[in-house]
């Protein structure tokens, strides 16, 4: 159950907003409207990704006010929530992502020293 539910929903979502399989990192940010907290979280995420995963990531922002059913499907309680869907395993971080050091560790975003 634990492993199948997110996968199933992942497929359901895929047709509308298909993650690029080649991109490697598929991140979802769940928010509820454009609150200061969600804007901060998105800005922080964008910055960290650009810094560590330039060109290899995709951010999907899900506004639960518009798609409330996804809150139950994806087991969201706290907002904002960042879900790393790919690469597996799935990881979750809640909060406005203000501590970038911790995000890097939590999401295993190892810093790549330039192009190689």
């Amino acid at each position: 159950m634990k492993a199948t539910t997110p996968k199933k929903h992942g497929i359901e979502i895929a047709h509308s907003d298909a993650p690029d399989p080649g991109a490697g990192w598929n991140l979802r940010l769940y928010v509820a409207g454009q609150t200061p907290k969600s804007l901060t979280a998105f800005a922080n995420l964008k910055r960290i990704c650009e810094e560590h995963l330039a060109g290899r990531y995709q951010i999907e922002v899900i506004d639960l006010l518009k798609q409330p059913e996804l809150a139950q499907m994806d087991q969201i309680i706290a907002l904002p929530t960042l879900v790393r869907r790919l690469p597996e395993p799935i990881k979750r971080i809640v909060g406005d992502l203000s501590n970038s050091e911790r995000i890097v560790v939590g999401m295993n975003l190892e810093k790549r020293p330039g192009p190689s």
Partner: protein
Amino acid sequence: MPKVNSRLTMLEKVPTGINGLDEITGGGLPAGRPTLVCGAAGCGKSLFALEFLIRGATKHDQPGVLMTFEESVDDIRKNVASLGFDIDALIAQKRLIIDFVRIERGEIEEQGEYDLEGLFIRLAHSIALVGAKRVVLDTIEALFAGLSNQAILRSELRRLFGWLKQRGMTTIITGERAGDQLTRQGLEEFISDCVILLDHRVIGQISTRRLRVVKYRGSTHGTNEYPFLIDESGISILPVTSSGLEYEVSAERVSTGVGGLDEMLGGLGYYRGSTVLLSGTAGTGKTSMAAHLAQATCARGERCLFFSFEESASQILRNMRTIGIDLQPFVRKELLRIHSARPTVYGLEMHLARMHKLIGQFRPTVVIVDPVSNLRSAGTNEETATLFVRLVDFLRRNGILGFLVSLTSWAGTSETTGDSISSMVDTWLLLRDIELSGERNKVLYVRKSRGMNHSNQVREFHITSKGVKLVEAYLGPGGVLTGAARLAQETREVAEAERLKQEMERRELALTHRRKAMEAQIEALRAAFDAEAEELRRTAANGRDRLGQLEIDREAMARSRRVTERSKKNNHR
């Protein structure tokens, strides 16, 4: 919804539909407000909450949302299937929605500020989907295991409960009891309207579940601990005396089934719907008395439910046939139902609940429990006493004549029941064995009978092949006389009566003689008196004559004297 006219309007309540709970709380849980249901693990709080939703959806047309933090939908389905609840059907009809919130420690990392808006959105979505009026959060404390920021969680929970209140959701929030606190996370500080505590205790190897309303703001409520049980039809809470003493009482009388006993009870028998206690030592014919009542009831075409804790149904039927009471036809016609069970097969609660249920199904006008005293082996004395109170209470409220048979022990205690049951009953009949002159005889008397002019006699009775027969008993100087002693006494009394009669006649005769003598004496006295009176009269007449003569003489003398004086004067001049 009723219009609120003034601030004094009573707090609105929502019936839960859980057996007995609405009676204790005087109508249910506070409408549109959260209620905290807490208790230790395994006390039945999840089931309580779920039944609240299911009853709401099925009985009160109030769809519900269950947000569960501990059990998956599958688990819940399995748990309640054994209780006869089909939650799949309710989910399919959009009367119930179950949202399993899975929280696993370590899976979520917290970075900076967040809130629980996701939870709000989920709830709002579910509420909108089924048009919910009821919400259950079971057990929201699990959030504290998954998220570590206490400050955020607490303020968000406060906001959540306020939010639910604002939406008018009648909510049950469950919480696990920890030590002295009602809930591990102190949820009671957020929920102040109504707090219900569940408890599961084992005393003397028999487990009892109990419920107590700890708090109910703005409402009166029973403060007792109420036992409850969970069986195949869900939760049943058994109010001890929730209805107070407000029964409808009947003035109608029903026959006891025993010729002669009706006469002892004001000539008409028991009151319909009253409670009768029949106590007696072993082998005094208690079951026979009960069988008579059953027969009389069924013969009127009414139903009678017989709970036997000693004999099997067939045993009772056979034994009663030997004393001329054939109950078999009534069993066939479904007017009589006999339920036999060993007292120790269940705890007391289960016994009472089973009785409640069977009475509810069968709807009898007479319930016989033979013997209630045996139930004592299924619980402590204190528990048994409350069981009796509740049983009597239940029967009275339903206008059922309760006939409770109590076995009393031998030594001189036949007038105490040991269960303080006697003060609750309306009519108390006592059966006793009296051992005298080498034989043992049975007597019956009415110890009390409220609201009727009952006999104060001690009556001897025989159990014959035609049932119980009452005969006159005799009170002699040595106590109640029965059997051969009674016959001897009867003979003695006849002789005594004859002697008395003769004595009376003799005395009357003597009196007549004396009266005659007296009258003769009076006659003689009167004659003497008359003679005396005549004598006196005559004497008085003589006296008067003489007085008159004296007067005349004196006049004459005076005249002659004056003449003499004058002549003397003239001579002197």
